[in-house]
């Protein structure tokens, strides 16, 4: 059965190295939790210099992702089961991703990758895998044309079961680059 799937996948994805994608997804799926630090640079056309933020990312399989921003302003963003809760200073926001499909790609791209949830990725994006298990990159292009008008591509680089960078390129030319450093603590 697996072999059949592999064949079909090869036909569908062309030159993608399918078994390696599976291995990567499998390895990622094995990681049930992670605690890393990140630095994010947002290149916005309007601004002269990128907006830089940094903090920590916490992940708990299968669908809890917490982004604790420490700089420039503290903010806590939690994605749990399709709902995003943000706390910024005195303000609380809650976002149901089902209602805001335009936010979905940004968040699902990271979450699905972390969870090794290939099916989820392929539901929203056309997935292009290059490289090998040791050093790989994923190019995600939104399938939905409307979404593609906001996000043109998401580029994720990693090694084995670890994600190093997430780059989001927006249709209007802006992009954001998140660099992830190894585990903070255990």
């Amino acid at each position: 059965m697996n072999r059949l799937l592999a064949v079909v996948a090869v036909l569908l994805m062309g030159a993608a190295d399918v078994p390696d994608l599976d291995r990567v997804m499998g390895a990622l799926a094995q990681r049930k939790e992670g605690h890393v630090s990140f630095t994010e640079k947002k290149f916005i056309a309007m601004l002269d210099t990128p907006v830089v933020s940094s903090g920590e990312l916490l992940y708990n399989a299968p669908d809890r992702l917490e982004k604790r921003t420490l700089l420039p302003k503290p903010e806590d963003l939690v994605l749990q089961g399709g709902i995003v809760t943000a706390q910024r200073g005195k303000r609380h926001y809650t976002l149901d991703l089902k209602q805001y499909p335009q936010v979905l790609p940004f968040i699902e791209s990271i979450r699905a990758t972390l969870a090794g949830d290939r099916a989820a990725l392929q539901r929203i994006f056309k997935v292009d895998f290059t490289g090998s298990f040791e050093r790989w990159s994923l190019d995600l292009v939104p399938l939905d044309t409307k979404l593609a008008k906001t996000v043109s591509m998401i580029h994720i680089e990693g090694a084995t079961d670890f994600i190093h960078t997430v780059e989001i390129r927006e249709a209007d030319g802006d992009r954001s680059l998140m660099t992830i450093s190894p585990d903070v603590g255990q």
Partner: protein
Amino acid sequence: MTRTGRLATAVWAAFLLAAIVIVAFARYTTDLSAFLPRSPTPTQRLLVDQLREGIASRLILVGIEGADPAERARISMAMARQLRGDAKFMAVSNGEAVGVDKDREVLFNHRYLLSETVTPERFTAEGLRDSIQETLDLLASPVGMLAKSLLPRDPTGEMLQIIDQLGSERQPPSSDGVWASRDGKRALLVAQTRAAGSDTDGQEAAVAAVRAAFDVATRATCTGARNEATANVCGEVGAGGAATEASSATAGAGGVATEASSATAGARGAATEASSAAAGAGSAATETSSTAAGARGAATETSSAAAGARGAATEASGTAAGASGTAAGASGARAALSLEMSGPGVFSVAARANIKQQVATLSVVSTLLITLMLLWVYRSGRALVLGLIPVASGALAGISAVALGFGSVHGITLGFGVTLIGESVDYSIYLFIQSQQRNATLWSTIRLGVLTSVVGFMSLLPSGFPGLQQLGLFSISGLIVAALVTRYVLPHLMPPNLTIADVTPLGAAVAAGIQRVRMPTTLLLVVPIAAALVLYTHRGSVWNHEISALSPVSASDQALDAMLRSDIGAPDVSYLVVVSGPSQEAVLHAAEAVNPALNTLVEEKVISGFETPARYLPSLEAQRARQTSIPKPEDLQGNLVRALQGLPLQIGRLEPFLHDIDSARTQPLLTRKDLDGTSLATGVDALLLSDGARWSALLPLRVPTTVAIDIARVHSAVSKVALGSGVETVVLDVKGEIDKLYSSYLTEVVRLSLAGFAGIVVLLGFFLRSAGRTARVVAPLALAVLTVTAGLVLLGQQLTILHLIGMLLIVAVGSNYALFFDRSSHEGSATLTLASLVVANTATVLGFGVLAFSSVPVLSALGSTVAPGAFLALVFSALLAGGGDTPRAMAA
């Protein structure tokens, strides 16, 4: 016929003609507020009047159940689409981001007039730097990412600020793109009709339109792809099917208060309409809060759809919404689709239908029963017809009196009219049965009986319940006319050879029965003692202090309304700050003045939040102040240059901002008209009321759920606010006001009842000329009242004002029978008298007894009290009279 006979008949015929004309042209209403106390103070009356026509009265809450979330969402969207195209509706909200463009446009174009952070400090170099820095920081966050597009025009983040100001309201949770209940089982819609709540016909058309939209939408499901999934869903869809309509009269628990449309008597402490505008205000407030919630929700949606924003948040009340939605979808069996509606309009439509149906049924049933009984007794059709002539005359007289006296006749009054049938037929019964024996005192006894009944009903006239006043007038005129017709007209209409069945055997049987059950008077003391015991042991739960007990809305409908309201997120408003003043501007200005005090209370956690119309429509003064905060272009430019030093933003990028803010300096101020077509208009209209002369702003308070609200602190905080002249603020504790009002009315009715009772006793004393005789007449009546009261309490029925009135009526009506027994003990009674009493009493009991089964609480309370009471009055009179007499006196 003699001359007097001809004269009498002529007068009567003329009177009948006049009455028929009046009745034919009279106006009939089903305004349920008639059976709730009138609002005493001008403020309350203003609020209630507003609520008749205002926003609150026009909302229809719709719930869709069954199938799965996706299907419900589809139906919700289909219905909304169809209803939005229907001219009968001004707005339809279901969680879809429709009409957000207009909202967004208005908010954005007036952002410098609306945002509370627009102050002179904002546009100094430091202020600009701080606000722009904050916006930039927000860009780093995913939350603010969507605000990117606003940056060139609104770098200080006023739009986001406005969203924040507005967006603090809870929105209903969403599922599949539409509003859904917390447990995910229901899709929700709120439709705002064009017709006012008092326009029952318009509301009926609107309700029908909603139902039609539902039918169309569900038919599409079923005629579409026929597969397993839809099969069992379509089983019962269609007219009636599984649809539950919030039927039968009013009373939104959440408070739908509009005088004409519905009496609210929600268990959850919102309005009872006429009872108190406070109540009305509460309900309106609840309703307005729900519309406000809707408005805010839409505002939130628009900004998030458009600009995203700091606030794009809908505070999901429960993440369960999403979860349960999927869970439900996963479950195999799907229930059939059903529609539920609630709201003032819905209730009033149902009420009208119910009352009409009740009146018709009750009249037919009681007439039938009484007719059958009389036929059986008289065995003469002609006698029956003649006997019903006074009844018909009395009924016509009653209706015309009410129509002339009140301008319109209430449906419930007509329903109560059936009792008149039972009572007025008594006179012809006496006439027919007792005319076979010479009876000199017949008419004097009947006259006294009529007088006591009249005195009893007269005590209803000064009551503060318009509906009860109608009942009183109806009965008084009806009884008097029926008695007069029986006395002066009927004898002339009777053929001389009129024979009815011989009821002597009946009379003899009754007499024998009384003999057998004869007991010493002292034994009857057991009754009051037992009754007192029962009342004492139940003393805690005897009285029902809820005004909801008077409302004709069934408990299930109140529950449905409460459920829909809580789903839609309409907060349970029981506290309001009402700001009233001579003009809209004064009132908005005062509302803004109160703002800081209320904000402090929120920070101190005394209240958890509040609503104010000033958020949607700031006062002109506040807008002007903001406008003048904006510096001249050259100054602003200079400040901006200094502010941007060190920030990664070039001033060139902010040209659109400079252009916009310059035009904001001279733009026309925002008025209510500018909000037309947006959901903000709904919010303003709900909270800003006017009766032409005086304006009122409602500021509903949200109370903390965990602790009881410290209303004293709210009072003191609000009263410390300095206000302009002619402006006043009031903190209304809605539930407290209702309870106070109810207690005061209870007291009033108690007083009136006692006065009526005293009047009857005095009357009896005057005519009977003997304290002893009076006591013997009154005693069985008192016993009957005690027994009925104790009986009702034992059966678990909580007593209301209406039961109290019923007790008075027992005395008034029962006296007719007691008087005959009194007379008989002095002049010797005939078995015929006994027979006539039994027949007359049966007719009365049937007349009132039929009411006891009515679904309208007013009628059932009166019926269930008076029917047994009248019967017991006869029984106790017989026992007491029989107890003291020798057998010979009882014989014919």
